[in-house]
């Protein structure tokens, strides 16, 4: 199938208006007859489900957690970007668009990103109207801060809990529709397959996580908003339950998976401290506004710190290497995430890491404390310092924080066109789960913006364009052969998982997969390592299917079985990520190939790789087929992304 991104003709600034003016509509009487399934209730899923229900569609929403309010969007700390220009500091839709394209290292679609910047202003209005308690100035108007390398203050925030407040806003809108009977909510349900009938998505198979039973649901269209796949690395800042299963099942049924290798490694997380560790905790990027990142200049000093013979305070000013300030004088400690992460890895690979494992650097607030006073610094990072102290038992007001990069966000995901439809008719994908508007690297405070843009303001328009032709389709009974077949396959797979009865726990194998991914497909990649990784993943997959031990029964509450299904999918996704990373013989954004660099900086190859790599599934272990969507830059000139 040829990839048609369906980008409307016309001037960049007019494409979305033009599209909306001509998109087909479904009349209110018909909307009541049309059913839409939404999988996932994070920012994208909850906002989409609520909005579709407000419009009059019959919605069924699914989440694996005990309540839609738990989705991992809730953990986003810093803020949400919007081109409101309330600060009168020169921001505009165009500037937000430009920053997002540049931040993404010129690997996203102009038209999508422009639309994102356009609707960003509506998002703030909507959320404020819902009662989201954004930070305010004394005059009662909304406050902004600068964030993640932007030269304007366009980030709206609610203390360090912006994701929580935005999610609760969307959740409340969703609950309102549930109360009104317009949404049927299925909590503790996990989608285990999508049902395709005559080339169109017509429903899902979901496992009821309490009874363990497989249930079937019909929809005229299916919307996936199931989040990112960072947990393929085992350790990440994602929630424990975050998984790729819904998106991966859709991929195996024909939806193309785009740019899977684009992974965002967040520079400021608490370093790994032991084998038991279950997740990594992010420390907000806002800390880099006042914190200075450094390691000792010499390996000897670093070694002494690792061994506990010296402390940070013992290293004299002239013996410290503030490497971000040294390498990137114009952005310094505020350079984008991919660049800050890579620089930390470089310092640690050079033997100058400062935690026992060797993988950690200092984030030092002592200058800020001297300049601003301890009270100001404390007030500014109110929740973050106690959180750090609670986890590490060290007080960042007295001794520098120790940080290291960790997997945080995945820019890749299911390929979607301008209407957010995947390569399967009637199957849509929103938020982090799609291959998204962030190109090869996402800027801070842009994930919340994209999730809500997709759910509140894009999908509700674009889905009508498809559903207008579906109003005559009667609900398909769930004993249709396609439902039977999908349910049977899901049932057999679970039986198989329970029957292996090997020696390793699901956790053991997941941890092994994480190590392979981090080592060979993490912050720096090369052809040799990636080739090796593919083989290792294939072997590990065999190990899983012959030696995993899954306890309990199928038709009961069984978290081991839930986990086993998710890890089995990660074991297939991991291979695709490696294949994609191997195919992309360039460095861009979160994808850094060691062979392609110039004086230590990423070297993009626009001549050969100015495209979205959309992969078609051809069987487990088989080579997927690559489809290229060429990226056309008509408004922005391609340039080397420099923060020096």
């Amino acid at each position, binding site marked *: 199938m040829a990839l048609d991104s369906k980008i409307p003709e016309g001037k960049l600034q007019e494409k979305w208006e033009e599209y909306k003016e001509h998109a087909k509509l479904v009349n209110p009487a018909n909307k009541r007859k049309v059913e839409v399934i939404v999988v996932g209730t994070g920012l994208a899923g909850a906002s989409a489900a609520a909005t579709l229900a407000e419009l009059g569609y019959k919605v069924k929403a699914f989440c694996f957690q005990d309540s839609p309010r738990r989705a991992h969007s809730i953990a986003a700390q810093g803020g949400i970007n919007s081109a409101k220009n309330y600060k009168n500091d020169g921001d505009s839709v165009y500037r937000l668009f430009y920053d997002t394209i540049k931040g993404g290292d010129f690997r996203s679609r102009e038209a999508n990103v422009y639309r994102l910047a356009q609707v960003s202003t509506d998002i703030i209005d909507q959320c404020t109207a819902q009662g989201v308690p954004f930070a305010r100035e004394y005059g*009662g108007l909304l406050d902004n801060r600068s964030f993640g390398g932007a030269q304007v203050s366009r980030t709206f925030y609610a203390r360090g809990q912006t994701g929580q407040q935005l999610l609760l806003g969307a959740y409340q809108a969703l609950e309102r529709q549930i109360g009104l009977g317009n949404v049927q909510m299925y909590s503790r349900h996990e989608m285990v397959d999508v049902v395709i009938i005559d080339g169109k998505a017509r429903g899902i198979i979901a496992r009821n996580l309490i009874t363990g039973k497989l249930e079937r649901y019909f929809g005229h269209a299916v919307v996936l908003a199931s989040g990112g796949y960072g947990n393929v690395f085992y350790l990440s800042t994602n929630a424990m339950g975050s998984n790729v299963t819904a998106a991966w099942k859709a991929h195996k049924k024909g939806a193309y998976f785009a740019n899977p290798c684009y992974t965002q490694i967040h520079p400021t997380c608490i370093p790994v401290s032991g084998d038991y560790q279950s997740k990594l905790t992010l420390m907000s990027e806002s800390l880099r506004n006042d914190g200075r990142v450094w390691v000792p200049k010499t390996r000897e000093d670093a070694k002494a710190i690792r061994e506990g013979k010296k402390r940070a305070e013992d290293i004299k000013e002239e013996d410290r290497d503030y490497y971000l300030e040294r390498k990137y004088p114009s952005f310094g400690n505020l350079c984008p995430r991919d660049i800050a992460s890579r620089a930390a890895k470089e310092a640690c690979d050079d033997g100058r890491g400062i935690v026992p494992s060797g993988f950690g650097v200092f984030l030092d607030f002592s200058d800020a404390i001297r300049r601003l006073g301890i009270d100001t610094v404390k007030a500014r990072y109110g929740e973050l310092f106690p959180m750090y102290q609670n986890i590490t038992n060290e007080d960042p007001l007295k001794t520098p924080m120790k940080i290291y990069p960790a997997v945080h966000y995945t820019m890749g995901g299911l390929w979607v066109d301008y209407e957010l439809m995947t390569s399967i008719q009637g199957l849509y994908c929103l938020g982090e789960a799609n291959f998204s508007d962030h190109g090869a690297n996402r800027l801070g405070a842009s994930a919340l913006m994209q999730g809500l843009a997709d759910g509140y303001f894009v999908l509700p328009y674009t889905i009508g364009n498809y559903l207008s032709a579906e109003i005559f389709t009667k609900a398909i009974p769930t004993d249709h052969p396609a439902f039977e077949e999908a349910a049977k396959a899901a049932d057999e797979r679970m039986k198989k998982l329970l029957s292996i009865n090997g020696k390793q*726990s699901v956790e053991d194998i997941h941890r092994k997969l994480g190590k392979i991914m981090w080592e060979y497909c993490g912050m720096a990649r090369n052809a040799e390592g990636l080739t090796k990784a593919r083989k290792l993943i294939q072997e590990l997959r065999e190990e899983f299917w012959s030696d995993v031990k899954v306890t309990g029964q199928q038709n009961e509450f069984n978290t081991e079985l839930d986990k086993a299904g998710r890890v089995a999918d990660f074991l297939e996704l991991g291979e695709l990520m490696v294949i994609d990373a191997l195919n992309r013989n360039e460095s861009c954004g979160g994808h850094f190939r060691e062979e392609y660099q110039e004086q230590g900086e990423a070297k993009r190859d626009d001549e050969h790789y100015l495209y979205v790599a959309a992969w078609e599934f051809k069987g487990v272990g088989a080579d997927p087929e690559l489809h290229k969507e060429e990226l056309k830059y008509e408004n922005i000139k391609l340039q080397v992304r420099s923060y020096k």
Partner: protein
Amino acid sequence: MKLNLKVWRQKNANTTGKLVDYTVDGLNPDMSFLEMVDVLNDQLVKKGEEPVGFDHDCREGICGMCSMYIDGRAHGPQHAATTCQLYLRSFKDGDTVHVEPWRSRAFPIVNDLVTDRSAFDRIIAAGGFVSVNTGQAQDANNLPVEKLNAEKAMDAAACIGCGACVAACPNGAAMLFVSAKISQLALLPQGQPERDLRALRMVEQMDAEGFGNCSNIGACEAECPKEIKLTNIARMNRDFLVASVGSETE
């Protein structure tokens, strides 16, 4: 370090449960309490036994999913922390620790330490929102909010819906949870048009779910991981009273 655990095991809502003894050794004081449960579960799985069921997700204290009594206290001994943010350095080597699910009529047990807290969702669905459809909003700065009120609204909005307030309350009351949402919206201009109706509907649903009433004990506030204040309950009671006697809405 080593811990002796007494963990509540219960197959499902229809069976009876009991405390089962486990000893977990080789622990590290820097582990979180939930990572300790991970270690226990890994050992159980390898022995072919079913792991302890427990709710957890974000493991950074914000999703509100983790929920258990640790030695009789909601989320354990540490003040203002969820179970996932509790570290083993709060315990001594060789301690015996009791681990149980939330106990409340309105939170039926699903499995082991897992309970059904969907009553909270139904209370929100009854009125915990501002009725504004997507696209209806005016410009955000057309609604100035006094900074102090915005801060107080945010304090209330910080509730994570974990249910510790209910679990801590001898009456099994959900009034801290309900009042946090009522307060947040009552403190903001956006919440005014539905203020009376919201208080009536949410309280009605709260009662229908089988939660108890407040008798000013204050255990909810003491155990709340987000330090939601008791004054929210006072505000809720005032709004409910005003709505009941002075309103023409119903």
